């Protein structure tokens, strides 16, 4: 058998456009920072809205059955959102619930009000407008203008519930659009980190504050009333139906804490959030420095492993408040490490 070479010389095929090497689009450190805070402020606004919604409904249920208790519940809302106390008011005669609701919703002087959070989220979005999708921008911008509209205070006065629901829906729409219209590259990963950090932090504070409050009120509340308050805790964490599915209507504080902290598959649990955050940190790091874990990733990885193998008994023996505070501190440490690694180039 003879080997013959092809006598007809064929011209070299030109390199098709698709084969040419293109370096991946970089993400500016400042843009990563903005993506992170944009997502974090939206998540925060949603939590504030949910807290206020749950509390206004709670008081409809329990009203004046234990007169001083509602005020303490309302004040706990401030505490959950890291706010020390209510500032001097124009209308000090108004009930505490109204003043707190006002302060937390449309008061621009409060940096942790819904309007302040959405304003900051939107300003961050504006500065990264060119790297987010049009849908994300339009949804957040529309949400922003809805709380800034001239009729916003009127709508809020007429129906606070509808107002809070519109914030929550707006946040979830924004998050859905983020997931569905943005490539899941670094930009998306930073939003996920931010969202989960905020969710974990607020959930820890809800549990810690409410547990303290309800434990100390055990002797002044009857069982039925207590159960309503415990259910409100679940509602504030958006977990009541998932809890019932697992534990039926059995309202037991330890079970509630365990569910919210350790439930593996429920997206609102702390364990789930930590796992998501860890995964995001890992993916970010893998796309940049494939071999060495980043500091944020280490911190989150350890916490993830702890929660993966944690048992209710150890939470009880350590004490719920210290346990939750430890988680919050770890998340803060991870956030700081993230900032150092990626935002401060």
């Amino acid at each position, binding site marked *: 058998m003879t080997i013959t070479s092809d006598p007809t010389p064929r011209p070299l095929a030109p390199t098709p456009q698709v084969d040419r090497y*293109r370096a991946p689009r970089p993400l500016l450190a400042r843009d990563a920072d903005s993506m992170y805070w944009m997502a974090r402020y939206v998540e925060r606004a949603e939590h504030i809205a949910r807290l206020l919604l749950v509390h206004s409904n709670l008081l409809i249920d329990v009203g004046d059955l234990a007169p001083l208790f509602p005020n303490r519940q309302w004040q706990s809302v401030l505490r959950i959102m890291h706010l020390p106390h209510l500032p001097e008011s124009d209308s000090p005669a108004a009930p505490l619930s109204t003043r707190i609701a006002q302060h937390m919703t449309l008061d621009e002087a409060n940096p942790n009000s819904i309007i302040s959070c959405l304003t900051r989220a939107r300003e961050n979005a504006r500065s990264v407008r060119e790297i987010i999708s049009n849908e994300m921008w339009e949804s957040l911008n529309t949400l922003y*203008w809805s709380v800034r509209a001239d009729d916003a205070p009127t709508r809020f006065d007429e129906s606070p519930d509808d107002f809070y629901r519109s914030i929550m829906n707006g946040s979830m729409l924004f998050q859905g659009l983020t997931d569905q219209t943005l490539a899941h590259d*670094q930009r998306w990963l930073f939003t996920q980190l931010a969202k989960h950090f905020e969710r974990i932090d607020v959930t820890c504070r809800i549990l810690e504050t409410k547990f303290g409050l309800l434990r100390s009120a055990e002797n002044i509340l009857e069982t039925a009333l207590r159960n309503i308050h415990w259910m409100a805790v679940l509602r504030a964490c958006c977990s009541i139906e998932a809890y019932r599915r697992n534990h039926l209507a059995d309202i037991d504080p330890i079970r509630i804490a365990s569910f919210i902290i350790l439930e593996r598959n429920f997206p609102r649990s702390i364990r789930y959030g930590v796992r998501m955050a860890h995964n995001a940190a890992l993916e970010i790091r893998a796309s940049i420095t494939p071999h060495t874990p980043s500091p944020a990733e280490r911190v989150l990885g350890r916490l993830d492993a702890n929660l993966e193998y944690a048992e209710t008994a150890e939470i009880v023996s350590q004490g719920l408040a210290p346990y939750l505070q430890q988680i919050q501190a770890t998340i803060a440490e991870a956030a700081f490490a993230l900032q150092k690694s990626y935002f401060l180039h």
Partner: protein
Amino acid sequence: MFDSYAAHGLFDEMFLTTGDPRPHYAPLAARLRALGPTAFNRRRQLADVTFRNQGITFTVYKDAAGVEKIFPFDLVPRIIPATEWDHIERGLTQRITALNLFCQDVYHDQRILKEKIIPPDLIYGAKMFRREMFHVNVPRNIYIHICGSDLIRDNDGSYLVLEDNGRTPSGVSYVLENRAVMKRVFPSVFGAYRVRAIEDYPHNLLQCLKYVAPNQTDDPTIAILTPGIYNSAFFEHSFLARQMGVELVEGQDLVVENNYVYMRTTAGLRRVDVLYRRVDDDYLDPLAFRSTSLLGVAGLMNIYRLGNVALVNAVGTGVADDKAVYPFVPDMIRFYLKQEPILPNVHTYICAREDDRRYVLDHLDELVVKATNESGGYGMLMGHQSSQPEREEFADKIRSDPRNFIAQPVVQLSQHPSYIDGHFEGRRIDLRPYILFGEKVVVMPGGLTRVALRPGSLVVNSSQGGGSKDTWVLEDESDQ
């Protein structure tokens, strides 16, 4: 719809003196009449909501009512027939070519000064003349890559160039968004016309930026340098970055190292090859220009001089759009291109010249006086609408710094029906076309038609409360 519309003896874009619409406006007039005021108003509201939700805003410095405003948009488009546009396009191409040759000359051999076409002191006295650019070679010898030459129409309908903007002309994002909103809100009106597309502007701009990339690479890294979100034109910077798929950077994101300029990313430093800078020369580099600037990058001019980064537009182009140099542009066209200018200038008095200055001071109430290097309608005196104290104040300014002022007779500016408070009134308009100078000259068909919204006003700038219209250049029907 147009029953109460009056022409006021001005050149009207839409209507002839008989009251009939001009032929190219006839289908539009018919559609608007058929639509009626209520439906029209609904569309207008829909347009406003669209602009608001998409955040197509402009920041006005003078206005106390909040920082961000929607750039007022008038739904009635301005229509230019193909033959008119052909004339404009040739004139603008000629003009930008001459201006580029002028910049190249004035920063190198200075033939135009040596042959006494332009007095040297006018150039050396130009605030925007940059000695730092002497004998600096710029990529492809292109200085003005993007130019906005403002056009107006006089009483007889002829087009004149009012001024060139060769530093950082803005407004093209509104042109593109206006067209998108018109299509969304008024699709039926398009049906009666064949309007030339403008959506390829970002692509053309990107090609132009790639063309001047200095370093040997087929995939140059291009970035837009913005002063940040509080700058009045930030929307445009963000818009163009998105449309072209390039990074949007601020001074703080950039660092100069190893004879190159880099941007800070999550993965470390990435070299930048071309910087479309929307920051004025003065603020570009604290080591070369204003030392207090936080908007620029220390050391950028060094990298520029080395030829390791391209800046678009080049540093120093302000010498070409200085209002006292503007009267010499026809001379530049004759000198460099050996051609007669296709588009004429507006007659201009240069206060640095004694005769002109005396005339200006004697006729302040008839003239428009402008500072030579302001933009946005600031630093102007509308003589015929001014008070005696205002004129005296300006007279003092002229006497103390004559080089800094020019004056022009009031050009009437054409008027166009615009929707004001529920009916149509005539408002003055101008046109800012956008010309790209890369491997070839590309003139975007149309541009930004700016509307002076205040009644009787001749000042169209957005910072003075102006608005805009969509501009339609019609396809050449003779091709069919």
